[in-house]
C-alpha cells in the first residue's frame, strides 16, 4: 500500500529491537531477517512505540534534528514505506 502523511503506523509485535550505541538492530522473527537502523531510524522506531502518522513523525523530527520540513517529509515517507514493505511496521488503526 502507499503511505500517505495521514496513514496511521504502528510496530509489528513480531519485531525484536535492541539499541547498540547510536545504532539499532531489529530482528524480524517471522522472516528470520536482521535489519540495522541509524540514529534517525532509531528515533523513528522509538516514536512508533505509540502508533502515529507519518506527519506526526515528521513534525517531531523537524523539531529534534536540523532538517528542512520538505526533505524530512520525503525521507520519512520513504523510510516508513520500506519498514512497511519489510513487515516491520503495520499501517491502519
Amino acid at each position, binding site marked *: 500500500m502507499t503511505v500517505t502523511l495521514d496513514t496511521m503506523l504502528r510496530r509489528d509485535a513480531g519485531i*525484536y*529491537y*535492541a539499541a*547498540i550505541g547510536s*545504532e539499532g*538492530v531489529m*530482528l524480524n522473527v517471522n522472516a528470520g531477517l*536482521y*535489519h*540495522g537502523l541509524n540514529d534517525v531510524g532509531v528515533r523513528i522506531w522509538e516514536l512508533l512505540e505509540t502508533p502515529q502518522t507519518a506527519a506526526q513523525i515528521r513534525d517531531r523530527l523537524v523539531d529534534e534534528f536540523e532538517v528542512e520540513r520538505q526533505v524530512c517529509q520525503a525521507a520519512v515517507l520513504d523510510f516508513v514505506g520500506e519498514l512497511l514493505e519489510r513487515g516491520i511496521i503495520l499501517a491502519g488503526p
Partner: protein
Amino acid sequence: MYNYRVSGLSVISEMELPGAIGIANGDAPDVTVRFGRVPQQLSAPSASGPAWQREGDTILLCVPRLARFLITGGKSIVVELEDAATARDASGFVLGSSLGILLHQRGALVLHGAAVARDGRGIVICGHSGAGKSTLAAALCRIGCSFVTDDICAVSMNTSHEPIVLPDGRQLKLWEQSIRSLELGHRQGDAVRETFEKYFVAPDITVSEPPRLSAIYLLSESQPPFAEGIEALALPDAVRMLEHEAYRPGLRRQLNSTSQMLAQVAATLRYVRVFRLTRPLGFERIAATVDAVMQHWQEL
C-alpha cells in the same frame, strides 16, 4: 570429590574431569556434578531434538552407548553411565555439551569458539567445526598470548558492564595434525577420548583474570566470494553471526527467549566489533594469519 573452576563457575564434582584445572575446596559451589539415576525420557517434554529433551528448567541429554545427562536450573548435572562406558569417556560431555547447556540456562552468551588474551584484552575466534579455531588460538599462544578458553566461550559482563570472556579453566584441544605442525608434541597429553584423535595440550600461559573482550573474529576460508583479509561486519550481520555462532544454537533457542538473546548480543556489541577473517586453510600460511590478526587486534 573434585573441585574445579570452569567458565567462571566453581564446580564440585563426584566425577574426575580430566582437562579441567582444579581449585581448592570452595565454600558454596555454583555447580554440582554427581552420579545418579537419569531417566531415558522426560515425562512431559515441551521440546526435543535428536539427542535432547526439555521440560521446564531441565534438559535431558542422551549420548548413545555412553551416558545420559540431566542438566537442571543452571546448577546441577547428574550423570548416569551406560553399561560399557567409563567415567573418563563421559567427562568430555560434562565439560562440553552439559556445561554449555548449563551456561545457557544461566543466561550467559555462550559462543562456540576459542579465546586468547594479551595485556588484559581478549579476542574470540569463531567458525564451524574444523575451521581452525583451536589451531589459530594455539599459534597465537606460541607468540605470547595467553590461553582463555577453547570450544565453549562464555561472555559475561564485568561491574562496568563491559563484556569479559570467562576462562574455561581447561586445556586447549587440538587435532593431532595441528600438534605436529605447531611443534607442540612435547606438550601433548592424553587423548580426549580414545576414539578421537584430539589431544589436550597444556597451554604455556593461562589467564586467571577474565580479560575484557575486544574483538570477535569469524574464520572463513578464502574461496570466492571471500578474498583474504579482515573485514568488519555490519551491525545486523554481526548480530546474526553471534546468534549463529552460539554454542548449540538450536538448543539455545529453547533455553533463552529471542529478546534475551538479542539483549545479550546487543550488550556485547556495544563494546565489541565482529570481523570476518578470511584466510587460506592449511598450516603453511598460519604464521601470516597470526601476524595479520595481531596487527589488526593491536590497532583496534
